[in-house]
């Protein structure tokens, strides 16, 4: 049990996917200008990442490793993720329109979100068991959401500040992300 708690803390804070592992930075800067879009993106990532983590683990262990096809990992993972995203989109549109209205526009973006693919690859490289992979995927996704929402909060304030012209927009965004990353740096060595 303690193992899992440590894993969760490690994935959310210590190895935060956005600020410590540098994965998923495009949506991090792209959708963090407003709190609403940030929350939508965070939810969509949590939703997809848990499913992708589980499915890619099964594909890797039961298909690729059994038949010695590890060199096809990159190709098969991206196909799994792309088709999963497409499937989730279709499913949500038909059966849960309310949720689709909230997450819909973020789903296509997730295919090229390197956080999803990155976590799937990390799960395999760390040789996690199925439950560990599931817990890790969920915790990484929560860490992604946490960082994204915090960052969106900071960015909404920055709009009100008087920023020098060359520093505006992405530039100040990156510096802010650096400061946020510095804050997360304090968790290092905790686990």
């Amino acid at each position, binding site marked *: 049990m303690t193992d899992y708690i440590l894993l969760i803390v490690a994935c959310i804070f210590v190895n935060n996917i956005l*600020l*410590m*592992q*540098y*994965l*998923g*930075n*495009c949506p991090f*800067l792209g959708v963090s200008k407003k709190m609403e879009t940030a929350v939508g993106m965070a939810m969509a990532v949590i939703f997809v990442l848990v499913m992708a983590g589980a499915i890619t683990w099964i594909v890797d262990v039961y298909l690729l490793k059994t038949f010695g096809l590890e*060199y*096809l*990992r*990159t*190709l098969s*993972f*991206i*196909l799994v993720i*792309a*088709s999963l995203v497409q499937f989730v989109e279709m499913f949500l549109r038909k059966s849960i329109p309310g949720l689709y209205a909230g997450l819909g526009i973020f789903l296509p973006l997730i*295919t*090229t*979100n*390197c956080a*999803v*693919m*990155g976590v799937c*690859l*990390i799960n395999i*490289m760390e040789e996690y068991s199925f439950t560990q992979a599931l817990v890790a995927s969920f915790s990484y996704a929560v860490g992604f959401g946490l960082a994204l929402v915090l960052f969106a909060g900071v960015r909404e304030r920055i709009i009100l500040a008087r920023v020098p*012209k*060359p*520093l*505006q927009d*992405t*530039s*100040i*965004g*990156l*510096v*802010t*992300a*650096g*400061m946020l*990353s*510095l804050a997360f*740096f304090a968790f290092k060595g905790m686990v």
Partner: protein
Amino acid sequence: MAKTAVQEFTKGLWAEIPPFRLVLGLCPVLAVTKTVENGIGMGVATTFVLICSNILISLLRNVIPKKVRIACFIVVIATFVTVVELVMQAFAYPLFLKLGIFIPLIVVNCIVLGRAEAFAAKNGVVASFADGLGIGVGFTLSLTALAIVREILGNGTFYDIPVFGPSFEPFSFMVQAPGAFVCLGLMLCIMNMLGKK
């Protein structure tokens, strides 16, 4: 024809240099620029994928159905990434280990897919090759520039050769995650200042 190809090439070097002008594909930029060697290695690998996928997608642009084009692009890109992965395992194993997860992640680098969608799907083979080469070289230059700053300040070395005397205290903030963000942010700011008319 030749003139336009040259234009497509040069625009990647300044006017649309990634990741500064096209803010795409930031993850490898931040992650692998701890040392100059990693930065160049990543840049070359991405350039190769970019050129090959641009050429192939441009050749197939009339065959690929509109509705499933993104999926087709991804398959093409993933194939070339697998090629790079295998070649690097065979000939540059230490570098492959250092770059680790970021080699397979070229697949989801938005620059590659972005160029396929925005350029190669609409233009001829020569122009697409020039575009891929230009953007790729621009990307490599940016990675190298960032890596030079970070390695010299953070490690006191350039390509593993010490630059300062033994009394130099490394500015270790620069090689850590926070330094990557701040450094890229400030470089973007400098680019904006220089680019102002």
